[in-house]
């Protein structure tokens, strides 16, 4: 049963992925609305919701890092939050540090701030980390994740995730010499390679990196265990993946990339949504009217129908090349006449998704 309806009723985690500009966050929010109507207690995790969407959700002040309950049709509930990567990472460091002193040493480190704030992969990993925490949260029985609009969005599928980039990193190993009393940190000055790097990027910068890896020593076990728990959740059958695209070649190519990525990880696409399609409005009259105003309307209807049919045919052909199995249902959502900036518009999208 590879339909959205089935996934929404049975999944505990729904991951929406796709490229930017396809309305992924809107689709995630509309799925949340339907979940609440089915009696589920859902929470939507978004990355960077547009202000208009925050308006649509009834939170004009915007979303924060803590879940906020939205005023939606029940009997279930819908909550939403905006992921703050740095805050989530800080929390993870605090939870895994041996003591406050170690946590503070890491949090104050310049290299750590770069990693937490902007390193590609960190946001994806923190999204996975957050969804794991929310999955365990008693307030919710369904977590809907709107992934970042990048190709790395599914990097967290690689067990044990991005964090291993650091704990298995050659520099980390290079700096840590096993000794009889445990790990010993090498001096930068004794490493020609590090001295050379230091000359290029500046000594302070490198010293920060080295200090980060030193401070991190001892925390890797906790981080690794956590990363493995996240991966196990993502690979279990209570997690389903929804690909979101628009009827444009580039976004379908991205969807294809994600499908391949899931397949590599031994996972399958649960459903496909093609958003922002040209709508069709039914057949034109048998003959073109003679009056100019009616003829213009006739031409417009014919043009939209032709565009919609061409687009549908081309997009459907592109979808067959994505490697998404035939049994997976594609839901086509037409473009609305206006912006999605009210709860009513969001409910319209929900109804278009679930008929």
């Amino acid at each position: 049963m590879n339909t959205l309806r089935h996934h929404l009723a049975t999944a505990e985690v729904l991951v929406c992925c796709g490229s930017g500009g396809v309305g992924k966050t809107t689709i995630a929010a509309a799925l949340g609305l339907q979940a609440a109507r089915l009696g589920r207690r859902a929470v939507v995790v978004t990355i960077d919701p547009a202000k208009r969407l925050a308006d649509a959700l009834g939170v004009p002040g915007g979303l924060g890092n803590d879940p906020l309950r939205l005023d939606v049709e029940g009997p279930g509930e819908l909550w939403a939050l905006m992921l703050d990567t740095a805050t989530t990472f800080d929390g993870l460091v605090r939870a895994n540090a041996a003591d406050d002193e170690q946590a503070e040493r890491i949090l104050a480190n310049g290299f750590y701030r770069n990693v937490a704030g902007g390193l590609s992969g960190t946001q994806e990993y923190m999204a996975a980390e957050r969804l794991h925490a929310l999955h365990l949260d008693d307030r919710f029985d369904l977590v809907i994740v709107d992934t970042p609009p990048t190709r790395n969005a599914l990097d967290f599928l690689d067990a044990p995730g991005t964090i291993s980039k650091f704990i298995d990193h050659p520099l980390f190993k290079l700096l840590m010499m096993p000794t009889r009393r445990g790990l010993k940190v090498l001096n930068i000055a004794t490493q020609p390679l590090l001295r050379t790097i230091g000359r290029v990027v500046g000594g302070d910068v490198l010293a920060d990196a080295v200090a980060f890896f030193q401070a991190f020593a001892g925390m890797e076990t906790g981080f690794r265990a956590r990363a493995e728990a996240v991966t196990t959740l993502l690979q279990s059958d209570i997690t389903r993946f929804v690909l979101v695209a628009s009827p444009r070649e580039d976004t379908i190519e991205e969807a294809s990339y994600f499908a391949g990525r899931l397949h590599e990880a031994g996972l399958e696409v649960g459903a496909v949504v093609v958003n922002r399609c040209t709508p069709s409005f039914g057949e034109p009259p048998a003959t073109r009217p003679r009056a100019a105003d009616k003829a213009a309307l006739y031409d417009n209807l014919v043009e939209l129908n032709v565009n919609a049919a061409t687009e549908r045919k081309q997009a459907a052909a592109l979808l067959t090349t994505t490697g998404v199995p035939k049994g997976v249902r594609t839901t086509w959502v037409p473009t609305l006449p206006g912006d999605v900036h009210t709860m009513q518009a969001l409910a319209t999208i929900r109804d278009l998704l679930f008929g």
Partner: protein
Amino acid sequence: MPPKRVDPLQFLTSATVAIVAGKGGVGKTTVTAVLARAAIRRGLRVLVIELDGKATLGRLLPDATVLQLSATAALAEYLDTHGLSRVTKRLASTGIIDVVATASPGIDDIVVLGKIKQLEQSGNHDLIVVDGPAAGHAITFLLAAKSLLTSVRGGPVHTQAVDVAAMLADPARCQVVLVTLPETTPINEAVETAYALEDRVGVHLTPIVVNGVDAGPALQPEAAPAGSPMALAGEFRVARRQLHEAACCDLGDMLGLPQLILPNVPGSLLDAASVEHLADEWNPA
């Protein structure tokens, strides 16, 4: 207030480097291709640079010179040409190059910009069109020079940052082409990006490109029976066009920049022929 519109060709020759920027999905690659096509038609020696490694521009511009630039490769090349050739391979193979990039955020961006600057200085191109990174990243990408100037006090990276900053600050050498869509959210994001680019980066902006605009003859949906396919299709089209027009007007009010319009291309596929067709809007063949 209706927005200012300009002659598209005017800015093609105003700077050597045009960096095309905008949020994902607004059509940066389309605009890069159309800009290059219009310039080639004008007889300019055009170089197209693709940053994200997707390699679609070669297909859209079969006869143009397209160069792929990747941060990792540019960083390796940079280290190579700065007396570090012996360690570069080891840096790359051990993944320490990632650490260098993380330790010094912007160093990968600065080497990419440095490479673009080098191509600009070569004098071999009248126009270098860069299919730039997404809007959020465009700001950090272009800010790399400024932030490295303060964080790295000396050495080759500092010199590189000084040169790149000089190029970005000079409107005769480099300008940014912002791309947006005629809808509220992309417009708001474009306005924010425009201010950040002008105020924080200090780079000059060309007219802003509004992509995918639907325009056409006036329709009177009420001329058809209410609820009929003709009336519904007419109402939809009128609403979309009003939305697009309002968005362009809002953009004009919020941002003093003149606008360049590209029409919506029906269907799912963008190919060399549709790029030619779009370029007719700016520079008829």
